[in-house]
């Protein structure tokens, strides 16, 4: 498979490979087989760029978004450690390494969180995130089943993310946020408004979401629709 991005972009982008809306088809086997509440599959690169491939409900969507907003959480840990991250009960957990995410998840009523690296060849390309609203035992069977299921979906997840990134206007929604285009558009607007570099502009967006306690997707939408403006004088 060779894909010339240039060719795709320069052809009519409106009709280029637009993926079907992300549904929970990759997620649902995890929920049924492993008896967990939330399932989210995300492709994440080493710089923290994240593309959400699928989530199986609002809770999983919010947990996935939180890790993107905060830049911390079990998925990032699974990515850097290249091994499963297992927290059977957040209420009993100390020193998770991601205290802000831990508190936010507990406020959402989450007890168990588990992240399994998505491995493709030599590379870790993302994570499968599982969550439960009651404490959940992570025995050897649970871990080996989850990891082997994660291995099985890795290629499909990457191919989905690839198509999503290549399409000019793939559908995105709260339940299938994919690349969070509005977040990057809002970052561009902040670059322009405040004269910042892209990483700094994104940091401002992140900080605003964090300080106001709002999802980053909501803040981004307000910026894109000009409901919210960052003023260089008052900011």
């Amino acid at each position: 498979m060779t894909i010339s991005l240039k060719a795709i972009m320069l052809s009519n982008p409106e009709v280029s490979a637009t993926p079907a809306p992300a549904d929970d088809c990759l997620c649902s086997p995890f929920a049924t087989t492993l008896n967990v509440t939330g399932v989210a599959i995300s492709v994440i690169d080493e710089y923290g760029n994240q593309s959400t491939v699928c989530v199986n409900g609002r809770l999983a969507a919010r947990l996935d978004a939180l890790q993107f907003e905060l830049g911390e959480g079990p998925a990032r840990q699974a990515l850097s450690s290249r091994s499963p991250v297992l927290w059977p009960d957040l209420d009993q957990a100390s020193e998770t390494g991601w205290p802000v995410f831990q508190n936010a998840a507990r406020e959402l009523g989450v007890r168990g969180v588990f992240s399994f690296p998505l491995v493709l060849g030599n590379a870790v390309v993302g994570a499968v995130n599982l969550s439960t609203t009651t404490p959940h035992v992570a025995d050897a069977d649970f871990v080996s089943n989850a990891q082997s299921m994660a291995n099985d979906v890795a290629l499909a997840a990457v191919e989905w993310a690839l198509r999503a990134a290549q399409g000019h206007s793939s559908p995105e929604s709260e339940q299938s946020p994919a690349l969070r285009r509005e977040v990057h558009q809002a970052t561009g607007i902040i670059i322009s408004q405040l004269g910042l570099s892209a990483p700094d502009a994104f940091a401002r967006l992140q900080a605003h979401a964090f300080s106001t306690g709002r999802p980053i997707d909501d803040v981004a939408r307000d910026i894109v629709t000009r409901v919210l403006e960052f003023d260089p004088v008052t900011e």
Partner: protein
Amino acid sequence: MDGTTREAQISAAFVTVAETLTAEHDMVDVLHTFVERCAEIVRMDAGGLVLVDDAGDLQLMTSTSEAAVMLESVQLADAAGPCIECFRTGEAVAINDISTSAAWPEFCSTAVDQGFNSLLSIPMKVHGRVIGTMNLFRAASEAVSSRDAAVAQALADVATIGITHERALHQAQVVEEQLQNALNSRIAIEQAKGVIANGLSLNMDDAFVLLRKYSRDCNLTLRAASEMVSRREITVQHIVAAATRG
């Protein structure tokens, strides 16, 4: 060669092949060493290895001598010969006396000209699918013992695992690089749309149209143009000027 030395050689060959499963080596180098070892162990004088490529064509990957290259080439060119037969059937092919063989006259006369009188072709299979063959040639006309054939097949099986593994890794790497590129491009494009939309009070779609026009007019990839915009290396006024000029 006494039995002990031979067993040690076989073990060493297995280790050589197995090492390539974990270490990053150049596949052609590894295959070359592998065929040399195999030929040595089963007392053949030359060898070659052909693998099927992405397009489904057989390609000569390595051979231990120019004479062996000749023998593989003549078969690939004619799509006929013992290696081709082995590839098609998935069964080992042995010819104990090439000079009296009735099959593949073109190949046989080349072989005799090059000084080879017997051969053994071993299939390389993954889950029953043949991905190539290892072909060993000998100067003397002599039957390959069933034990030697079994050893050659076992070595080929181990090499096949290595080749499959390497190919899968390579493929994964290609997909991963494509993904990285696509993510970076998309993010840069969305950021550039935001910069242009804000600077010129446009909506995102119109900002994209302008960005795309600019990239085309300047012979830049969309990603390159986007990165220049999001890094503020070019101003939105510059983009407008370029767009209205064209």
